[in-house]
């Protein structure tokens, strides 16, 4: 138990380091800019002329604190962190005066839901099929499957999503093309809403799964084909352990472990893919919000989403790291 506590403490430190570096890069990037973002943004809002002087002043204040234009750099940096700690990014410019945190709060459940389901599905499908393909390496169906996976794996998210969109909404219109749920439905925990949300999530998650499954498949196949030649497997096979049990509890179980570490390492890349997928399918998650914010030149929203995304992704990795030793008992001894 004590070794687990030390392990967790180390991971907490790593988590803190990731957030620290990520947020610091975010801060530095926004301070590289030669133009004054605050006046630029204020001018943009006030040209529409529908805001009171007080709210404009509030906007200028929060933007100044977020960007810290004019103060000394260290002070700006500390103020930036204080704002972040309170999750207060000021009002959004494109949806003025809705606070940025509210917009993000509305979008983030969609992204988390979509990513959790599609990541877990593609991890399991890819690993189980890949494990079987590695063990029964002479099986013809699994070999063809391997070739398909290999061809599909390097294709970028955008193209897979785009092809799916054309096939299932244009050539064979059976699935909704965009949105997270049907427009005229009230949001809430009703069966209609849940069904509609599920139906709308099929295409986005399918495209994420199609791209994601390949790398797990190939990684697992390589791992299993190495493990199969290990002495302990040969011994178990000679001792008469049934084939089914050999695959599941002797070979695949061991090969799963490095794949969990792989999952932790690829969360960031999966998030990148989700941004583009949401954009293609008009899914109301955080990725589409980010793209819209850039097009609307919404400074505080872009900054807010970037910071939250970094924290959320590193938190996901942290959670996987924390669970890992509960699955692999060896980690407690060695760490």
């Amino acid at each position, binding site marked *: 138990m004590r070794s687990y506590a030390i392990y967790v403490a180390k991971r907490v430190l*790593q988590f803190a*380091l*990731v957030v620290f*570096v*990520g947020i610091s*890069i*975010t801060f530095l*990037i*926004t301070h*590289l*800019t*030669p133009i004054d*973002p605050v006046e630029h943004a204020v001018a943009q809002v006030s040209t529409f002329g529908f805001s009171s002087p007080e709210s404009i002043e509030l906007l200028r204040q929060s933007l100044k604190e977020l960007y810290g234009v004019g103060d000394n750099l260290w002070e700006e940096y500390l103020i930036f962190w204080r704002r972040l700690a309170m999750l207060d990014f000021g009002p959004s410019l494109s949806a003025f005066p809705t606070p940025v945190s509210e917009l993000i709060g509305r979008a983030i459940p969609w992204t988390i839901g979509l990513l959790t389901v599609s990541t877990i599905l593609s991890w399991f499908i890819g690993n189980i099929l890949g494990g079987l393909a590695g063990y029964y390496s002479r099986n013809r169906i699994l070999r063809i499957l391997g070739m398909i996976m*290999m*061809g599909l*794996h*390097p*294709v*970028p*998210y*955008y*193209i897979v999503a*785009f092809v799916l969109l*054309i096939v299932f909404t*244009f050539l064979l219109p059976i699935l909704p093309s965009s949105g997270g749920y049907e427009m005229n439905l009230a949001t809430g925990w009703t069966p209609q809403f849940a069904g509609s949300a599920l139906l709308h999530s099929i295409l986005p998650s399918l495209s994420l799964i199609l791209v994601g499954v390949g790398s797990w498949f190939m990684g697992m196949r390589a791992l299993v084909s190495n493990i199969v030649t290990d002495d302990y497997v040969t011994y178990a096979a000679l001792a008469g352990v049934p084939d089914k049990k050999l695959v599941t509890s002797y070979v695949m179980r061991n090969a799963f472990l490095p794949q969990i570490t792989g999952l932790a*390492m690829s*969360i*960031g890349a999966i*998030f*990148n893919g989700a*941004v*583009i997928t949401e*954009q293609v399918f008009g899914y109301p998650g955080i990725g589409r919000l*980010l*793209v819209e914010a*850039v*097009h609307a030149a919404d*400074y505080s929203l*872009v*900054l807010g*989403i*970037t910071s939250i*995304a*970094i924290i959320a*992704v*590193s938190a996901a*990795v942290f959670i996987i790291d924390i669970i890992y030793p509960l699955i692999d008992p060896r980690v407690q001894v060695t760490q």
Partner: protein
Amino acid sequence: MIAVLRDLFRYNGEFAIGCMIMAIILGIAAASFFSPYEPIDSYLVALDAPPSLEYVFGTNSRGQDIFWQLTFAIRNTLAFGFIVALISRILSLVIGLISGYMGGIVDRILMSINDTFIVIPLFPLLVLLYFVLRDDMTWFVLALVMAGLGWAYDARLIRSVMISLRTREFTNTSVFSGMSMPRIVTQEHLPYVLPIVFSTFMNNMNWSIGLEVTLAVLGFTDVDTPTIGGMIFWANQHSAMVSGVWWWYFFPTLFVTLTFIGLFLLAISMNEYIDPRSRLDRMGNS
């Protein structure tokens, strides 16, 4: 060297197919030097002409010949991937070698930085960078930034190879015969590490081209420099799918997918060269 290449070509289908695909892609990229048009010029040819003998891949709604446009796009996209891969390989090689050879506290510090860069999601950062720089975001700036952020995964790989090399007998022999640390690393260990660097080079090119296409499709890059993603971006801007100009999407998508598959096949066949057991296994089967 030539014998290895010939064996790879003969016994390794992936290598042969990968080489052929990349030869076609490079050929098209090289054709850009003979283009009758400047890449940036528009309204030179008939609008929205479908593929025909005169315009092999058709023309787009901006009056550009898609074939010649594509030659420039492939050249720029490949050059972009190449530069990102080259710079990030240097970074990951230096960090991986130092971390693996020195071990101890240096290793621990470098690897925590390394793990940090693996975890941080790059896409929002790149979007933020574009958002701040706007027109100052040339493709070279983007390449530099992506190289600065994309070395981490492979540095870890190189480090792990390095750790196993350090414990080998010949390392001790070199140390006892008085070789200095930089010489041991560059002369004794580097030859073992280089094949991995080449294989990750291809994968890194794929990664950077994929990100560039994604950013460009959203319009978050310098879209006036023709790239594959930029072509798809302009097709979206002109709603090419709605107006039925499918060839505007089809050819860039086809060729970028071919590039991905080609580079990927080369990378995995390179891996096979690194691990001769699987090569022998394959030769025994055929």
